[in-house]
């Protein structure tokens, strides 16, 4: 049935377009050349402000080890443990971001391991670790390179841009966090001196 349908759909497209088919020019690639990042610290602050406006939080830490310690402290503060099916995913999961976008407070996470494919969605709290080196101003082909390369390589799974905690406004437009995904989202950026930020 689908083979017949396929042929019929393509025949209908060809008939509908007639001589107009393929006459449009390929539009030039939309993304302009990127400006070099002058102040990564300012970018990190912008990221933090954007994410805060969406109900998420950002912590600046020196390195990976400090990030691990900060996540443990963050979990202790909230009285939560690593999420599992046993506790109905009420705990937290830790993800690694390939890129952060300051303009939107977003993190790009590429998930190709079947075992962790639900980590961005099931736990009540989501912790994301990223390097300051992966901070970008906004969405463009350079900042999305990790996702685009995975797609072009033929990797499996998904690349997801996470912009704040899960949310809904389906009831009288009242925003409620934690609709189906995490209610809390914390991003830990390594390679940023928190003390320096406090003085900024």
């Amino acid at each position: 049935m689908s083979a017949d349908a396929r042929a019929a759909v393509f025949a209908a497209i060809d008939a509908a377009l007639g001589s107009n088919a393929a006459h449009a020019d390929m539009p030039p690639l939309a993304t302009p050349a990127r400006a070099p990042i002058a102040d990564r610290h300012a970018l990190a602050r912008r990221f933090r402000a954007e994410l805060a406006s969406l109900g998420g939080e950002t912590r600046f830490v020196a390195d990976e080890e400090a990030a691990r310690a900060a996540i443990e402290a963050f979990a202790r503060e909230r009285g939560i443990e690593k999420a599992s099916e046993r506790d109905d995913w009420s705990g937290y999961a830790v993800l690694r971001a390939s890129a952060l976008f300051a303009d939107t407070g977003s993190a790009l996470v590429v998930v190709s391991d079947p075992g962790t494919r639900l980590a961005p969605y099931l736990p009540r709290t989501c912790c994301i670790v990223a390097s300051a080196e992966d901070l970008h101003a906004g969405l463009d082909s350079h900042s999305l390179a990790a996702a685009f390369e995975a797609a072009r390589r033929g990797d499996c799974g998904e690349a997801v841009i996470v912009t704040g905690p899960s949310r809904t406004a389906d009831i009288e437009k009242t925003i409620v966090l934690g609709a189906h995904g995490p209610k809390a989202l914390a991003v830990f950026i390594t390679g940023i001196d928190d003390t320096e930020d406090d003085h900024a």
Partner: protein
Amino acid sequence: MSEREGAAVIAYDRLAVERDFADPHGPAALFASMQRSNDAKRARHADVDWEGLREQARAIKVFAIANLGELLRRFEREFQARGGAVLWARTGEEAAGAFLDICKRHGAAMVVKGKSMVSEEMELNARLERAGIEPVETDLGEFIVQLAGQRPSHIIGPAVHLSRQEIGALFARELQVPYDDDPAALSEIARRLIRRKYLEAGIGMTGANFAVAETGTIVVVENEGNGGLSAMAPPVHVAVMGIEKVIPRLDDLIVFLHLLARAATGQKLSAYTHLFLGPVAGRSAYCIIVDAGRTEVLADEHVRSALHCIRCGACMNVCPIYRRAGGWAYGWVYPGPIGSVLTPAMVGIDKAGELPFASTLCGACRDECPVKIDLPNQLVHLRSEAVEHGGHASRVERFAVGVWANAMRSSTAYRRAVGAARAGRSIAKLFPWLIKPLRAWTRERELPHVARQTFRDWWASR
């Protein structure tokens, strides 16, 4: 394609219009819609070149539609190369049949559904239920309208027509939970209920906001996380999309991501932008690509650009008719100005010929559209189609237009017509029953005044 969709089309639902106009909750839905529109306006000008992006998006869509066959073939090839299977459907019914075949093949007794307007076209829930398969809407708004046994009234806010009190009463009645009208509490009830379903379902279904030909990538944009869970939790993911969703390159996606959330909800980006790359080990992925009347739209150059629509709902939010009449008045899946174009173009002017008249032609939809679809001109074109196909102009209307056309043919005829109108107005004031055929128009309006003398007469008398 000769076979057209639309058995379920009610066309322009006059009863729904009357009911919605009388609905005391109407103003709340109107407010929500206006608020959404205002949020969108504030966000879009904040930090992007909105007009530049709109122009880029339009150019990409023009190219994609002109090269539709080639891009769909490329998408199919790339999707298959990554382990997915592509199925094709001429009609919504055929698409539902293909979906049911997948359910049978994988022994699925339950389907969790992310938001998909195409699945509404397919009437998938009803068809699944008839086959003994439980469909579970996971988007909160869709879940609410499914529970209420209703259709969505807005493509972005499906339950915008219901108040929190109505939803609280609905949950108490249908889910046997204590009454609560706090949106957070209601959302939590739905979350807990649906959560287990993701892990139990045999199939997860999503729509597709975009399909990237270059890499066979399905892109889904959403806020709740239900799209991610529907696609990634069950062992099988089925994406259902119209033929027009294909875009050429990954880089083109950036333009649409900048536009979509800003136009739809006023966000800079939605909470989740998923690029589904291909099924992970041990899992399956399908993509059902549906025509269902889209090639009819493609064949008509006057309305072809309606296929550029990215389903943001912005045209509805600014439309004075939609704001007052609500989504159900449009009788089919797509409400608002875009629905008034798509529905008659997809299902046939004979089935939905009244919809293009449900517009003031104010142009707000065209100004708002992130991909610059010229909706007012398309509505005018479809109006003329509707009139040509007959049945959409009353005898009185045809008579009046005939008189007007004759009057405009010469200055003498025009002079006589003005004189007759002047006399006619005086007679109508004395004998109002004479204008009974116009009562729908005159019930809330006076007949227009006719000047005592024409400009030419005044000029000649100086």
